[in-house]
C-alpha cells in the first residue's frame, strides 16, 4: 500500500486557494455538506472547554 492510499479524506473542504467571493459558485456542494455537518456537531456538543485546575 502506498502513502497516497493511506491518506484519509477529512470533513474540511480545502478552501485555501478559493477567494471568499467565489465560494458561492460552489453552490450546493461538498461545502454546504461540510457546513451542515459542522453545525450539527456544534448543535450537539456546543463549544467544549477543556479546563485543567490545580490547587497549588
Amino acid at each position, binding site marked *: 500500500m502506498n502513502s497516497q492510499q493511506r491518506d484519509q479524506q477529512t470533513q474540511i473542504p480545502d478552501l485555501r486557494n478559493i477567494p471568499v467571493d467565489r465560494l458561492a459558485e460552489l453552490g450546493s456542494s461538498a461545502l454546504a455538506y461540510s457546513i451542515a455537518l459542522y453545525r450539527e456537531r456544534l448543535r450537539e456538543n456546543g*463549544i467544549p472547554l477543556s479546563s485543567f485546575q490545580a490547587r*497549588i
Partner: protein
Amino acid sequence: MLTTHLLPEAAFRALAEGADRPDTIRLLRDAQLSKHQMLLYAIADAASGADPGPTAFRAGYDLLARMQAADPAAGHWLFGLPHLGGWAHDCLIHLEQGTAADFGHFACLAAAAAVRTGTAFELDVPVRGGRVRLPGLGSVPADGQAAWIRLRCDGHVLTAGGHLVGDWRLLVPDDGSATAMPRWSGTPLIRVAAGGLAWNVLLETGDPYLDRYTLPMSTGLSADELRGWRDRTQSAWAVLVGHHRWAARPIADGISAMVPLTPGSDTDMVSVTTPAAFGAFATSWPPDPVTMAETLVHEFQHVKLGGLIDLVPLTRPGGEKVYAAWRQVRDRQAACFRGSTPTWASPDSGVSSGTPRPARMTSCALRSISPAGGPRSSRPPRPCCERAA
C-alpha cells in the same frame, strides 16, 4: 472540483504518539484556515438586511475579497487568527439560537488584515468599551459615545473618526520595543528565545471573543504585570527548550495567543483551551517556570486534538455516558476522550524531570475510561474537566 484536506496516516500516527513534526502541525493549521473560511461563508449567508451589523459585515467581506484578488494568500493571516475562530463560533451559536449575532465585528477583523498589509480601505466599525479592536494587532481609542466609527486607510496612514492614528507600518503588536503612539495600543506580544528556538505569542487582554473561558480574562495589566508575564514565559520556554526541545518546537508553530485569566482564589491554577479558538490557550498566573512549561505542553495537546477532531470524528455522536478517572460523574465518550488527551500525548515523566518519552495512545489514560463501572481513581495526577461553554 472541491477537494477536502487529507490526513496522511503518518500524520495521524504522529499526533497519536505525541511525536509532533512541523508538517503535522502545519497540516492542522492549514485545515483551520479552511474551516474558518467555511464558517465565515456560513455566517455570510445569514448577514442580510440593512442594519449596521450586517452592512458592516458585508463591507468587511468585500474588503477581504478585494485583498484576496490582489494576493490569493491575503486571507491566510486572518483565517489563522484564533480571534476569528472565537468570533465565528459565537456567531454560529447565536444563529442556532435565533439570537442577535455580532456580524459587525467582522469589519474589525477585515480592517486588521487590511491595516497589516497597508491596503487602502474605508469601513464603519463597531466601538466597544470606547475602543476599536483590530484583532491580532491592537486597538484604537474612539472619542465620544458613538457606537460606530469610520476607519480609513489611504495606503499610508490610518485614521479613526477623522483622527490620525499613524503610519500603518507602525500599527503592530507591542513587543516592548516600540515607541509609544498616543492613539495606538498594540496587543502585548511576548517574544522568547532559548537554545536557538524562538516563540512569539500574543498576550491577549482585550479581545471579547477570546474572553470565553472558565475564568475571566485579565484585562488592564500593569506594566509590572506585563513584565512578569514576559519574564515567566521566557523562563518557562528555557525550561522546555532545555529539557524537552521536542515539545517546544511544535508549540512555537501552533500557539499564537495566550489569554491571562483572573483566578477565583490565590491558590487556584487554571488553564483552558477551546476548539473554537485553535492556536490559543488561557491560563491563570503560573506560580513558577516549570508549572508554566507543563501547562504549555498540557494545553497544546488539547489544541492539537481540537484540530484533529475537526478533520476526522474520533468518537461517534451521542452514545452512552461513561466514567473517566478524573470525573465523578458520567460524561459523553467524546468529552472523556478530549480530557484524556494530555495524558496520553504528553511525556509521562512530567516536564521537570526525566527523558522525553511520548506516551502511546493506548496508555493508561485511555484504559482509565470505564464504560460500566465507577471512577477508578478519584485523584488523577492531571485532572481535566470538559464542559460546554
